[in-house]
């Protein structure tokens, strides 16, 4: 029976002082006792509204009941059927604005810790002896997936389960997309990602790295001589945005993409054992306040910065980072400069960053995004001493594929246009989803788009028979 407890069972976390100097995971994960204890809080609602909050519609009460009953294998099976990346989503989803926001327990108490439980089940499964998966790829039509980020991985998993031979093409030397180069080890350990990808390859999904569709192989070749019947584009939003303020090309200014890629993909934290360096001074200013900005500033602390600073033109009410990331950043000593807008990066004679000139802001009327518009306070300019500036103010979709593919339509933001809010693009049998369509959003929305696209591709291919 459900048990009325006001508080969530807390997530065991590593000590903030210790963890802010290494890359081991911050959240340690529930043990079996925590998990069962927390699972008992679920009300088993007739109308499970939490599911409406989940972009991949995980049957949440179903898996949680199995946890409460100690049937972890059953819980794992339920999860995996609806979400091919549970160990990832359990770690990086913004549950507080999804399933947990809808949770009925949350009306009066703290909501059930759905995310922590999802992670627990996935980790439990990871700890079990490997099982043989006998998945028959008996469909005649081959599907190509462009990009191995969350959208592509989920789409591939869903299609493989339906019996389609699927090949993922990845531009970088390792699969995972933003899960690999963007999200740091301390939030998503790469062995967890490797394990999730391994589950997909066990289903028969083939992954080819170092192939850039549009450069190495064209879209027409994929659908022509290579014999793919359908293509899913999950190329994400990987093009960094710069502010266009003076001094942005000084030495020591990075895009968050570059900074994080150097560490996460190229292992610059292990330089000179790894060959790629990253330049980090004592004082690092990260511009922006989304999840990527939090990842960046916390990474900066871990690679040697003494002061990690968030500089954001709005206030903490308007930031887009997950509550947990903000909270962890505070614990680790990150300094927050709210209502502060950078207007120039200052450098010395040799071109190295020495400061960040900012202006103080105040909040005005709501803007198009519904958030209060920040307005500069006249005469409030000041200079912050910094050694590095990292811009984390958003990404746009990469135009590379569009430039070389005829018949693919995009909008003025460079996002692919899809028909009727589905996933079919302007080109027949070519589908798209995730950040490539929506612009930069979350892992789980991309995963959801990948899942929906798989269903549409299946329908499209069945209609052709």
């Amino acid at each position, binding site marked *: 029976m459900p048990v009325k407890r006001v508080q969530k069972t807390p997530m065991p976390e590593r000590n903030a002082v210790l963890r802010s100097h290494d890359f081991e995971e911050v959240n340690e994960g529930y043990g079996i006792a925590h998990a069962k204890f927390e699972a008992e809080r679920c009300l088993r609602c007739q109308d499970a509204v939490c599911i409406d909050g989940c972009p991949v519609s995980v049957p949440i009460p179903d898996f949680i009941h199995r946890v409460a009953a100690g049937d972890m294998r059953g819980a794992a099976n339920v999860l995996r059927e609806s979400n091919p990346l549970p160990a990832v989503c359990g770690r990086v989803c913004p549950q507080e604005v999804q399933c947990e926001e809808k949770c009925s327990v949350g009306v009066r108490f703290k909501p059930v810790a759905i995310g922590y439980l999802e992670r627990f089940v996935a980790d439990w499964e990871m700890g079990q002896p490997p099982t043989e998966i006998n998945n028959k790829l008996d469909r005649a039509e081959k599907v190509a997936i462009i990009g191995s980020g969350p959208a592509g991985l989920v789409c591939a998993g869903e299609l493989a389960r339906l019996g389609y031979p699927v090949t993922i093409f990845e*531009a970088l*030397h390792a699969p995972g997309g933003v899960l690999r180069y963007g999200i740091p080890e301390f939030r998503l350990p790469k062995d967890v990602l490797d394990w999730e990808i391994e589950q997909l390859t066990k289903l028969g999904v083939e992954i080819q790295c170092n*192939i850039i569709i549009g450069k*190495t192989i064209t879209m027409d070749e994929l659908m022509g001589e290579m014999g793919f019947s359908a293509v899913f584009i999950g190329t994400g939003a990987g*093009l960094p945005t710069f502010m266009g303020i003076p001094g942005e090309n000084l030495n020591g200014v990075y895009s968050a*993409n*570059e900074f994080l890629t150097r560490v996460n993909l190229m292992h610059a934290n292990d330089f*000179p054992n790894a060959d790629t360096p990253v330049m980090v001074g004592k004082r690092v200013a990260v511009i922006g306040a989304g999840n990527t900005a939090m990842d960046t500033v916390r990474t900066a602390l871990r690679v040697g910065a003494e002061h990690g600073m968030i500089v954001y033109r709005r206030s903490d009410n308007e930031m887009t980072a997950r509550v947990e990331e903000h909270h962890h950043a505070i614990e680790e000593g990150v300094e927050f400069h709210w209502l502060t807008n950078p207007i120039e990066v200052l450098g010395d004679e040799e071109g190295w960053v020495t400061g960040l000139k900012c202006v103080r802001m105040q909040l005005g009327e709501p803007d198009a995004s519904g958030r209060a518009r920040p307005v500069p306070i006249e005469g409030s300019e000041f200079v912050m001493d910094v050694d590095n500036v990292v811009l984390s103010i958003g990404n746009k979709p*990469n135009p*590379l594929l569009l430039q070389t593919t005829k018949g693919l339509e995009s909008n003025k933001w460079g996002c692919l246009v899809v028909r009727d809010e589905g996933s079919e693009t302007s080109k027949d049998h070519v589908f798209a989803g995730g950040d490539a369509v929506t612009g930069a959003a979350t892992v789980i929305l991309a995963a959801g788009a990948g899942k929906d696209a798989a269903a549409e591709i299946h329908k499209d291919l069945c209609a052709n028979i």
Partner: protein
Amino acid sequence: MATILEKRPLTPVTKLYKVDAPLIAKKAQPGQFVIVRVRHDGERIPLTIADYDREAGTLTIVVQEVGTTTRQFGELEVGEEILDIVGPLGMPLEIPVEGHIVGIGGGFGAAALLCLMRELRARGDKTTIMIGAREKELLILIDELTGVCDNLELCTDDGSAGYKGFVTGRLQELIDGDGPGRPDSVVAIGPMPMMRAVSEVTAKAEIATLVSLDPLMIDGTGMCGGCRVTVNNEVKFACVDGPFFDAHQVDFEEAVRRNKMYVKQEQESKDRTDCRKLAVGQS
């Protein structure tokens, strides 16, 4: 992965490789590059495609051993694999002007002129290749380059072959009407100071000039922005917008400065590699 089919030393620090990379060879066009990684935890570095053979499915690349990764590359032998290779990247070279085209190669940059000048010659342009180095022994690919152009001009600082002096000196002579005569367009590939000097000469003579910029890169697909350069007061990504830019619009000072960003770390990395080798030697 790509297997090394041929390896040939050109100078003590420069080697030519022919590698088996049919997918890339099929798409490669003059001026494009690949990104390679030689070992796990190794760097990703861009290398210009010197030549390609679509039918044989091979790429020719020339590597000068200057840093950790290029030195690791130099240790690869025929039959061994390049761990990762991806491409072709960047925009192919486009020279709108027809007529007398002079391709200038400094140091190992000369290699990049191979397929480039052959294509221009096939288009019907009058082609001159001008290569420069400190001394005769450091001039590379003379035979191969002779075969892809109408005139080959050699320049050495010490006068041991061809013109005595920098390529810019000989270029000025051509502009003044000597030898094959005034160029209608110039493309320069090589060390930044050489490209900058060429640019200054051609700017005065008002000759359209392209240079091939080689800033630091990670992904090579526009994702990191590390390769940003300022051209005509606009920020461009050399990996996707380049590598060729209008020489007279390039902010060379910034490009030179940005390429020196990791000088200290590069030395540290070299030292680390040497330590590793010593340790292996002892065991």
